């Protein structure tokens, strides 16, 4: 029985290239209406997995289901509803962006009237009549994003959509993804830029060496790894050394000192009390803030756990 909240599912998906096991029995589920982050270091098997989802690679074993239907590497009908951006996208050099998008509109059976607004959406309207061969890597990438939006699909499969873009364009793409998601689209995107993923996604999958390391919400992963928010305190004159009494304060779990700053791991409920005690003991607190655990920490922790 198919769970209708699952849009893309892989079951024990495996791809072997000669002596390299690129993807190893990977099972994951992308749910309807979410932005799903697909993370892993370079060479972890992200692109290979995405290519299998899109039917560009044949799995050695395992299955891909899109909206509950097994794709079998075919699935012409299923692909109608998917916008796809491959890794290191390339178009035909001799075409202009307008001709390129016209061609893909015809392939998808979509109305060509949307082409100029798609180009405007990604900020390429001023290059509409240049040949794609003269485009920078970033511009080609943006054209790829515009191409993926043809026919307003309800599923997006994007391989490194922010790769090769400068900060300004990253924001354009990020805003565009948020908007599409707010309009109801389900998005899976791979990335190794963890801050991007943290900004956009609730649920993520982390893979390494072709194997799934974790698949959950970012909060749950942090909880699971016992990654806690920390208190950052700036105190001039600390001199690279924690006060001897610091561990006597109730609620202090861990302290790391560097120069005049101190990172204190503690439960949120103790924060104020800890700072007041410090103050009473004569420690001059010049500045403070709380530091939320980053996806990066989780990522590093998970991968080092894998290695060890």
């Amino acid at each position, binding site marked *: 029985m198919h769970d209708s909240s699952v849009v893309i599912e892989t079951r024990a998906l495996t791809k072997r290239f000669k002596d390299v096991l690129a993807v190893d029995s990977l099972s994951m589920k992308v749910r309807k209406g979410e932005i799903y982050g697909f993370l892993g270091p370079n060479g972890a098997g992200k692109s290979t997995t995405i290519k299998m989802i899109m039917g560009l690679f044949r799995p050695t074993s395992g299955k891909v289901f899109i909206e509950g239907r097994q794709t079998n590497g075919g699935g012409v009908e299923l692909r109608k509803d998917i916008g796809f951006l*491959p890794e290191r996208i390339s178009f035909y050099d001799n075409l202009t962006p307008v001709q390129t998008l016209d061609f893909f509109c015809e392939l998808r059976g979509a109305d060509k009237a949307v082409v100029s607004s798609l180009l405007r959406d990604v900020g390429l309207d001023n290059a509409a009549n240049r040949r794609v061969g003269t485009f920078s890597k970033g511009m080609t990438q943006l054209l790829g994003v515009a191409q993926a939006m043809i026919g307003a699909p309800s599923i997006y499969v994007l391989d490194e959509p922010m790769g090769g873009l400068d900060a300004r364009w990253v924001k354009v793409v990020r805003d565009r993804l948020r908007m599409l998601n707010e309009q109801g689209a389900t998005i899976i995107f791979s990335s190794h830029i963890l801050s991007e993923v943290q900004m956009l996604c609730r649920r993520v999958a982390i893979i390494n060496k072709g194997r799934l390391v974790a698949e959950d919400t970012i909060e749950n992963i942090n909880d699971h790894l016992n990654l806690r928010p920390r208190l950052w305190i700036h105190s001039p004159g600390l001199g690279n050394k924690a006060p001897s009494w610091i561990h006597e304060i109730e609620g202090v779990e861990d302290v790391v000192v560097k120069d005049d700053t101190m990172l204190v791991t503690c439960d949120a409920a103790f924060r104020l009390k800890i700072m007041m005690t410090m103050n009473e003991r004569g420690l001059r607190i010049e500045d403070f803030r709380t530091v939320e655990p980053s996806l990066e920490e989780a990522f590093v922790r998970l991968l080092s756990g894998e290695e060890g």
Partner: protein
Amino acid sequence: MWLDPRSVYVIAKKEFADNARNKWILALVSIFLVLVLAASIMAGGGKMGEMSMTVSTLSSISSMLIPVIAIMLGYATISGEAESGAISVVLASPVRRVEVLLGKYLGLGSVICFSVLVGYGISGILIGATTGIAQWTGYLVFMLLSMLLGLLYLSLSICFSSVLKRRVTSLAAGVVVFFWGAIVGMVVIGLYMATGGSLADFIAGDTSSIPDWVWFEMFLSPQDGSGVAAMLAFGETEFLGYDLDLPPWVNLGTLVLVQLLWTVIPLVLACVWFERRDV
């Protein structure tokens, strides 16, 4: 449905438009036009020669040039686009791979057919206007054979393009395929000599003593087969000074049939290999 003709048409249209845009078609039409007129003037000794004379002068050049053009058009079709990554987005669209392959084949095929039709057509009309149009059916068959030869080599080049990983290896394969057609004649003659054949007979143009199996070469080399078929289309029995004393099983019908096999089999293989390919 197994095939969506609309997708095939969209891909074919793009391939044709690309070659119109980059002036390939114009160049090909010009080459064909000049080639036929030059051959005609050579055959006619300074003035326009008759069609059959023109074609016999032309066919050896034509049967070299058309395969070269077809291989150049086709060799990178799949491997080149797979290497650049351009084919990924196309194949992730709601189209079948067989539609993409056939679309490319038909698009590039129409580039060849259109160029032959216009280039050979205009020059045929010019020759006909000067020397009379008595042999127009022969010339028409020659045009069709030229198109078929183009489609045949296009099929071969797309076939290895669909199986080979890289652009440069498929170019190498194209060179091999081209030389196969060009040298298989020499190989067969070598075998003929080795099995006691007489070179003297061959040079003297006395082909009556040549065993039948030597003529099988016409089926092994698409280039030679096409050239001989063109001669037969004009009812000629002399080819480059040789009397064509052909066995009955080498005739226009069997030659065309073999050319069709050379076209269809690689195309089917290309579809099968492309379907299985990781891109």
